């Protein structure tokens, strides 16, 4: 079904204002967009992280749906348990209220997904629960003070991989979690950003429609951790896609589809120079790091195009 803002605007908003996310937080926007499509018959479980903390500061909750928080490492395990309980109750005919369909969504940040929650996520996906896992990837542990994570890109300044006279930010490339999830052979894996609202809504719709586990990785520009003006968060999401750093693609039953191929990809430096976390890379002597980032992104993009070609052939 074609998604447009007129129809989306008529959907119920399930994440109220009054949550304590920072000004210009694109993560809260991701959740709003996610819930506009998912609808009220949804159970949400979230790992510890920015979005869990800001939306449910006791005794307030910004969620109008059921919301569960258990721990940092097990949002996928918690939601898979809820889904199993639901199936068991349904089979026995013990559900108090019959619903047509209930969506089960687990949410985690990049810390709770790439690093800490990876094994419970992997388990839940392998067991084939009918659930959707959404990772909002802000590329570091923003909630606890911008520590590096498996998702932090090469050269980014974080509090545990700082840029100084000896080292120049993180020394490793980021982990490709989306590919790890593709390797689980689950029915639906996708990558998107909040700027591309149509893409995001379509992907959430598809992910909830499949019978089995689905995974969506969403890039979330963070004004605090990435050091940029609060107004340009959505712009940075767009530029990440235009520079091929964060390609929009989906994998349905192992078949890749790249949703947007920039005709003339912008250099990585255009995206990087707007962010304070890469400021030191523009100093003399660090040109090789800019080059290395560009080379890595080019290689990943080439790999993605080949995968699309080979799985569609």
């Amino acid at each position, binding site marked *: 079904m074609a998604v447009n803002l007129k129809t989306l605007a008529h959907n119920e908003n399930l994440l109220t204002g009054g949550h304590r996310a*920072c000004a210009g937080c694109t993560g*809260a926007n991701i959740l709003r967009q996610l819930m506009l499509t998912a609808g009220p018959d949804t159970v949400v479980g979230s790992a510890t992280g920015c979005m869990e903390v800001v939306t449910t500061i006791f005794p307030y909750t910004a969620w109008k749906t059921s919301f569960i928080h258990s721990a940092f490492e097990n949002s996928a395990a918690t939601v898979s348990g809820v889904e199993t309980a639901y199936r068991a109750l349904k089979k026995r005919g013990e559900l108090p209220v019959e619903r047509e369909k209930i969506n089960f969504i687990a949410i985690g940040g990049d810390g709770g997904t790439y690093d800490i929650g990876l094994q419970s996520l992997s388990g839940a996906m392998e067991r084939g629960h009918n659930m959707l896992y959404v990772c909002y990837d802000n590329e570091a542990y923003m909630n606890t003070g911008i520590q590096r994570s498996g998702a932090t890109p090469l050269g980014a300044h974080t509090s545990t991989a700082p840029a100084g006279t000896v080292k120049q930010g993180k020394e490793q490339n980021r982990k490709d979690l989306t590919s790890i999830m593709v390797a689980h052979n689950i029915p639906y894996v996708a990558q998107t950003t909040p700027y591309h609202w149509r893409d995001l809504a379509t992907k959430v719709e598809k992910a909830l429609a499949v019978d089995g586990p689905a995974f969506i990785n969403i890039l979330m520009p963070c004004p605090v951790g990435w050091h940029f003006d609060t*107004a340009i968060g959505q712009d940075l999401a767009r530029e990440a896609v235009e520079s091929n750093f964060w390609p929009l693609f989906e994998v349905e039953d192992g078949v890749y589809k790249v949703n947007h191929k920039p005709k003339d990809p912008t250099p990585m430096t255009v995206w990087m120079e707007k962010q304070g976390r890469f400021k030191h890379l523009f100093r003399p002597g660090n040109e090789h790091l800019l080059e290395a980032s560009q080379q890595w992104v080019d290689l990943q993009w080439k790999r993605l195009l080949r995968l699309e070609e080979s799985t569609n052939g």
Partner: protein
Amino acid sequence: MSFLPNSQLHTGGIIREAGNAFDYKTGDWRTFVPEFIEDNCIHCMFCWIYCPDDAIAIDTSGPKPVMKGIIDGHCKGCGICAHECPPAKKGKSALVMVREEK
């Protein structure tokens, strides 16, 4: 809602009133506030979809949603709406950030 007394809290950290954060006002965080210029608005809903705080008031009673202005109590003044406003690219923005002075 102000802070609850202990006697009214539920065991296990359960919050029974869904969406009660709506009563918590975050509007006093901001320095700048978007000013809505209705004549320039094309009701495209971009500000509404990109707002992190659901602080854009829209009227959805008709077939086409209509932008109504800013929800003062929740807007944190990030400026995403004014930045993403499509008429702004033609120099006729429907949302302009102004310094809030009282």
